[in-house]
Structure formats: structure tokens, C-alpha cells
């Protein structure tokens, strides 16, 4: 099980969940993708988009200054 990182804190709709989907397509089933993202639209849409594609949300953690860490396991 490998771990990958993606920072989308500077991105806006639709690139937040577009980049997530493209990144998830590159990794293997069971691998983890650790995404750094901001609250609001990204925090709402990125987990929703990933769940819809059959991936598993492992963790959502507040970091600092409206920034969160989202861990997704590729399904």
C-alpha cells in the first residue's frame, strides 16, 4: 500500500475534484491519497466526488487556517 500526496489548497471548482479524480486514476487499488485542501467548496465536493467513484474516505482532519487533510483509499 503506497501513499501519495496532493495539494489543492490553491485550486478552485472544478479543478479541486478534477485533479483528485485524475490523481486517483494514476494510483493502484488500496493505495492512499493524502489531500491537503481548504474548507468550503473543496471540503464539500472532493469527498463526495471520491465516494461516488467508489473510493473510501479514511480520515478528514483539520490542520490550520481553514486547511484540512483528507485521506482517501482508492477503491
Amino acid at each position, binding site marked *: 500500500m503506497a501513499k501519495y500526496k496532493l495539494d489543492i489548497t490553491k485550486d*478552485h471548482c472544478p479543478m479541486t475534484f478534477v485533479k483528485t479524480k485524475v490523481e486517483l486514476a494514476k494510483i493502484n487499488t488500496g493505495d492512499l491519497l493524502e489531500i491537503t485542501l481548504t474548507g468550503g467548496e473543496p471540503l464539500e465536493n472532493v469527498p463526495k*466526488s471520491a465516494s461516488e467513484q467508489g473510493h473510501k474516505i479514511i480520515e478528514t482532519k483539520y490542520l490550520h487556517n481553514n486547511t484540512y487533510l483528507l485521506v482517501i483509499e482508492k477503491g
Partner: protein
Amino acid sequence: MTGNNKKISIISFSGDFDKLVAAFTLATGSAAMNYEVNIFFTFWGLNAIKKKKGHKFTGKGLLARSFNFLMGGSNNVPLSRLNFCGLSPKLMSKLMKKRNVATLNELYNAAKDLGINLYACEMSMHILGLTLSDFDKEVKEVLGVPKFLEYSEGGDRIFI
């Protein structure tokens, strides 16, 4: 095909910078939300998918080649308002970059990465003397209305 029943089909007619941004934003966002997405480029919209991105003589026949030269490709798409002889799309792209919003070029590349189905309109291509080889390789097929209706059946159809 994504194997689900959520589908959106966009008819990209306008070819204006801002309307193409709207079409590609909706398309890429929908594809990332697991929708099957089709974009059917017709008339001015065909400029967005031409292989030659600038003002180049493309197609068959003097009149058609002149039209294609004047219209150009995706580097020359005009803003629907306040175009200022083509200056505004460049300024708008600069502003989009500054604000970390995806530019038209980035959205188009994302559409290709996401496997969005890109189609070209047979009738418009015939008028403009264009063939499939004049478009980017990701353009899958040349369609007429019956095929578009078949591919878009059961989903939403949006005209931009």
C-alpha cells in the same frame, strides 16, 4: 462509458472564450463527479478543437480556407463582450491564472485527461471544408444529429 446512468451532453456552438470556459467547466466538473460527458462541437465551437491553434489556412476550398484563417483556433477565440480586438481573452486568462482559476487551456487538457467524449459536427465540417484530421486526436468521431441523439439519450442535453 463510465458504467453508470448519469450523463450530460453539451452542444458547444458558440466558440466564444467565456462560453467555452462555461462548457468545459461544466464538462470537467461533471466528469469528475462520475458523469459520462459528451461534447458535440458545432459551427463556431469547432474552433476550440482545431489542431492548428492560431490563424492558419485550414480545410478545402479558397473560401473555406479563408474563413478558417479568419476564425483561427483556440488561441484566438473571442470574448463574447468587450473583446477589444482579441486583447480581452488574453487579459482574462492572465486574471484567471492570478486568481488560481483554471484557464481554458487547462480545462481542455483536463477534459482530455478525464476521457470526456469529444465529437465534431459533420454538417459544420462540410461547410468549412474540414476533416477529422484537422482536429485534435482526442476528437473521437464525426457525428450527425441522429448519432448525437443516440449518444445523448437518457441524459441532460445543454446548448452553449
